[in-house]
């Protein structure tokens, strides 16, 4: 087969506008969000079967306009985060219930979410208040950390697929920001054991602070999406409104310091 041509694998028919779609991390399932409901599809051959669905119709008929989806790869991939305008919710696909719901974590609209690939209960969300907020699903009254690295709405945020202290965020201020959130990463400061068996922490190295590693300003218009490569842990791509796709990589000092720590 010609690898440069796209072949349709399956077709799913829909009744109303589909707004977002996301693949299951490991199996050939996908979730689609349209005007009325969230649906989990299991692909089988050329067609697909709707496995479970959650109705999104609000009381009072209020309509929402922006949405984003993010699958939680832990716990056997049963949880899905989705956002509708200003609220952020979590759907359990096993029993079809909304696990939690955050109202207005980011002013007017939540633009994107991502779940930490290494830590099962942490996720990050970004939105119209120009911040990225890090949450623990067990304790949602306040975010673990708030990062304000942008000067306008943040449209996408993603953890590095392997090293979750690296965070990539894209914003409509035309900047892509690569930052380090070591304080809540899965590999915090290591404790060294003495001969006596006591613990002492080494002096904080520069790698242990939360800070912006680099700001990429190659775009001249709003950047709407920045994603990590699945193949190489140090490469990422970003796309802006004027159609410019930029592929960048993590600065070498940062890469070596992570690999050698």
């Amino acid at each position, binding site marked *: 087969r010609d690898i440069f041509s796209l072949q349709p694998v399956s077709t799913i028919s829909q009744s109303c506008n589909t707004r977002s779609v996301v693949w299951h991390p490991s199996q050939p399932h996908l979730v689609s969000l349209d005007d009325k409901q969230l649906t989990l599809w299991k692909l089988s051959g050329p067609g697909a079967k709707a496995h479970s669905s959650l109705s999104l119709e609000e009381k009072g008929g209020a309509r929402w*306009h922006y949405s984003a989806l993010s699958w939680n790869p832990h716990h056997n991939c049963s949880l899905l985060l989705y956002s509708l305008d200003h609220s952020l919710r979590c759907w359990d696909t096993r029993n079809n219930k909304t696990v939690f719901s955050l109202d207005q974590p980011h*002013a*007017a609209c939540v633009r994107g979410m991502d779940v930490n690939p290494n830590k099962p209960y942490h996720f990050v969300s970004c939105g119209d208040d*120009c911040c990225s907020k890090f949450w623990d699903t067990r304790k949602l009254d306040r975010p673990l950390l708030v990062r304000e690295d942008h000067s*306008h*709405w943040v449209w996408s945020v993603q953890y590095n697929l392997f090293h979750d202290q690296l965070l990539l965020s894209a914003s409509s201020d035309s900047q892509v920001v690569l930052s380090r959130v070591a304080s809540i990463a899965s590999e915090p400061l290591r404790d060294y054991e003495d001969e006596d068996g006591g613990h002492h922490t080494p002096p904080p190295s520069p790698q242990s602070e939360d800070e912006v590693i680099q700001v990429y300003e190659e775009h001249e*218009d*709003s950047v709407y999406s920045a994603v990590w490569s699945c193949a190489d842990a140090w490469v990422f791509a970003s796309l802006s409104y004027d159609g410019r796709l930029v592929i960048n990589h993590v600065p070498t000092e940062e890469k070596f310091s992570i690999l050698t720590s």
Partner: protein
Amino acid sequence: EAGDPLDIDRACFEPDSYVQKLLKDCSLNELFRHEEAKKKEIQELDSNMQYLVYENHSKFIKASETIREMKDDFQRLEDDMNRLTSCMGDISQSSASINEVLADRKKQISQLCGVHHLLKKLQFLFELPARLKKCIEMGFHGQAVHTYTKAHHVLEQFKHMSSFLNIQRECVSIVCELKSILRKKLDDEESTTADIAETVDLLLELKEPPNHLCQQFLANARQNLEKDLDTAQKLQQEEESQDVMKFVGQLCTGFLANLSLVIQSCYDMFIARTDGKEPGMAEEAQQVLTDFVQSVMSDCLQAVEERLKKETIQLDSAMLVRALDKITGKLQVIDQLLPSAGTSSSSQDLVRNIALLHTKFHIQCLKQSFTDTLMSVRVALATSKSTSPIHGLSLGEQCTLLYSCVKNGMESSLNNVKEFIKPTVGFSLMMRTFRVEFCLEYVRKGIVMDLIEFVLDTAKTFTEPSKECGQLSYPPTLILTLSRLLHNMERTSISYLVSYGDEKFPPDEHGPVVATPTAEVLRRAGQEAQTLLNHYVAVQGRIISQMIRKGLDARDWLSTIEPRSVRSVMKRVVEEVSTIDQQVGSLYEEGHRKDQGSEGSRQTYSYSLNQGKGYPYSSTMDSSLLSNIQKLFYERIEVFGRVEYSKLSILTGIIKIFLKAFIECVRLKTFGKFGLQQVQVDSHYLQIYLWRYVSDEHLVRLLLEQVVSSAIERCVEPQLMEQSVVEAICGHN
């Protein structure tokens, strides 16, 4: 040494060589003169010599005469001395003989005298019990005690004789009675201090252990003093007015005066007396007295402190200071009487506590009044949103209202509290460090700085954005007013308030306590002012962005009809901007605009000029290249950036925010031909009305161009309306 042979005054003078020289050197006239001079000299010397000889001679003669006289006198003296010795010898002889004769008689007489004395003493002893009884009956306790003490030793000595023993026993029993009478007298409440002093003296003479006496005396004294304290307190509770000065006066005349009397008499009776005889006793007594005074004083001070605490919660300091002064004056007297009791340190503590409580009360009131004023301003601003600003106070006036609340409050507090360091106040002079401490710690830090920091903290609470993102419970104009207040504070007010405070309460620059620096507070005020201003801009921007977003979401842009008029949302946006402009204008000055030249607001969009009429671009390649080239020349606009303290800057910030939101929302929609044209009309309308509010109208134009170009890219069939038609539609409205 070899002299000069020509020198007349020397021994080695040689006349020949001298004359030779003269003959050689001098002229004839000179020689004559020389000879005359020499003659004169010789005459003089002769006469001197004669005189001296004569003097010597006469002196010698005088000396010899005097010696002769002395010789005569000494002769006479010697004769007298001889006579004297012989007489003395005679006298001693005769006295010895007399003594011999009378020796016998003398012995007899002295014996008789001795017996007489002894008999007298015995008589005294035998009569002793009777006498003692009589004395006691008649009440002459003093006399009884004296008599007894006199006889005591002798009785002790001769106890072994039965008669003496009887006497002694009787005396002892009588004396015991006497002791009990005396002790009763001691306990008697009616006794005056003089009586008590006398009784104690007598008891001491009777060899009562002084520490028991001391303790009993002090126990009685304590009862009296407690009674004094109780009456003073009761009087306070009963009386209607509860005048603190009356309480203090009562206390001074009653309790404290009595206490000083007690200390004085105790000292006289027990400590001064036993000094020297038994030093250990004196120390013990001193200790007992000190303990007594300390415990009594602690009760008293507690009562005083309680009463004064009630007074500290008045704003007027004069009465409090007067009362405190009087009390500490009296306490000082007591301290001088008995320095070891540490009364002065407790009175200093009292002064400090009261001063602290009072200043704390003042700052509490000031904070409360500020909070109340802020609340009323907030309510006024919330309710005046609907009514026009003419009816209520303008924002500038609200701001001055807040500031004057702080300023006037602080001034009146400081004037009141100044009473504490008036030069006429006693404790201020006595406690040297108090004055400095008061000025720096209590007033400067406790009132002035604390109030300023409270204002800053209160303002800071309005910058917490996270909790109420959707609907704010307070009007945005409140944030604006607070930012102006803080800005003023940073620029002038804080330094004025601090210098006012320093004027009234001069800080000691060289002392150990350092004045809290104002630099930190100033920096903080500036920071908070900036944060508040940024927050205000963000909030207002967000409100208008919501309006625009809702307006965009409400319509189906693919199938809309041909635009006939500007959307009402845009009109509302412009109205809102003008209201904000008015509000901000009442607080901040205009700021300056960037000069645009003569182009003004009528300039059409650059892309339509470049690409001609009809279709704006023939291929997507050209337009993106062109727009990219355009973008190269413009700086990236920072939307939520720092805002300056001027009206234009603030409004520019707000407008930037909602125009950028407009761009982003447009990019999420899909437009039909007429949808695009509606967006074009709306943008032009905004262009016409918004340029006057911003400092750089180029900015507005750029953002609105981006709106339309984004809409073009999202359009299914992009076809722009004619510019003249657009202007006509906008002109209508």
